[in-house]
């Protein structure tokens, strides 16, 4: 999780407090990992370790954030230090799709088809304000989808327009930690029930 979130949690435990959910909390709290991060068996931890450290991103840059994604792949902010080295052009061989840029009405079904054609287990990072909520193109545009999570389930949101390479790296590390807490038996496919508005 994020650096400041970790500092906040450590300081929280230091004072002996426990995170108590306020009664009037409207929504349901979904545990961080897919399928709960309570008990992770040794087999799970081995598989999750392998899976989280070799996520292959897909070549999917639609607009300006793609340049910052390329900068993250470049020598200065190298994302191959964390195992993201191999970027695959075909959706069949990728297991992480970084939505770098605006998703437009005409691009929605294409993005959904690419997501469906990726092999399991697949993860999604929504990079940039456009992928999160339509960003600067929220008002007065007739052709922009206001946020990529109308099309596919998103795991990590990286805000910024465009986000700095370090921000994208932190988002990727967050995704890796999320994968590390996955539990095979309770794993549910994020796309099930997505269209019906889970």
């Amino acid at each position: 999780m994020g650096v400041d979130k970790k500092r906040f949690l450590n300081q929280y435990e230091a004072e002996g407090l426990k995170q108590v959910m306020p009664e009037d909390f409207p929504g349901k709290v979904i545990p961080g990992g897919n399928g709960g991060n309570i008990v992770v068996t040794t087999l799970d931890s081995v598989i999750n370790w392998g899976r989280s450290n070799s996520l292959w991103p897909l070549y999917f840059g639609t607009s300006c954030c793609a340049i910052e994604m390329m900068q993250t792949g470049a020598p200065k902010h190298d994302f191959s230090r964390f195992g993201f080295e191999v970027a695959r052009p075909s959706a069949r061989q990728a297991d992480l799709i970084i939505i770098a840029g605006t998703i437009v009405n005409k691009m929605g079904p294409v993005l959904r088809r690419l997501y469906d054609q990726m092999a399991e287990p697949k993860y999604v990072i929504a990079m940039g304000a456009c992928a999160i909520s339509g960003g600067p193109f929220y008002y007065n545009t007739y052709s922009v989808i206001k946020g990529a999570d109308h099309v596919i389930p998103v795991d990590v949101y990286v805000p910024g327009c465009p986000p700095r390479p370090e921000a994208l790296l932190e988002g990727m590390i967050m995704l890796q930690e999320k994968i590390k807490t996955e539990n095979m038996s309770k794993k549910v496919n994020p796309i099930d029930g997505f269209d019906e508005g889970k």
Partner: protein
Amino acid sequence: MKNEDLQNIIIGLGTDLKFSTEASEFLNIIVPKEQLHSVCSQLKSNPDLKFNYAFCITGMDWGKELGVIYHLESTELKHRIVVKVMTEDRENPTLDSVHDIWQTADFHELEVYDFFGIKFNNHPKLRRLFLTPEWEGFPLRKDYVDEANMVIK
């Protein structure tokens, strides 16, 4: 070449062309719909005009009439003019295409058709370039209504 002598040459190319230079840095010529193709081909072929570079073709909705604005430049003689053409009827606006004179018009006219709905006759393949084929309405028209996204001014 100065606007005035440009005007004197162009006046002979067609009947009742309206000229104006106020509110714009170039000489504006309003050409009636029927003579668009003949005037434009003469603009290109006339030896002392030679407008061979159409650098900007813009679709326009002036409230009542729809039209297209052509910014033309001559690469040898280094002068520029603006040709405007308008059509009143908004249900089925049609102009004739100038893609055989300037081949860049082929793509720009597709864009004008896509956003303003102006059909261009004898255009090679008139289709929606930017929007999905089943999109109804022409977005850049002033009377395009889209309550979901457009903030009413």
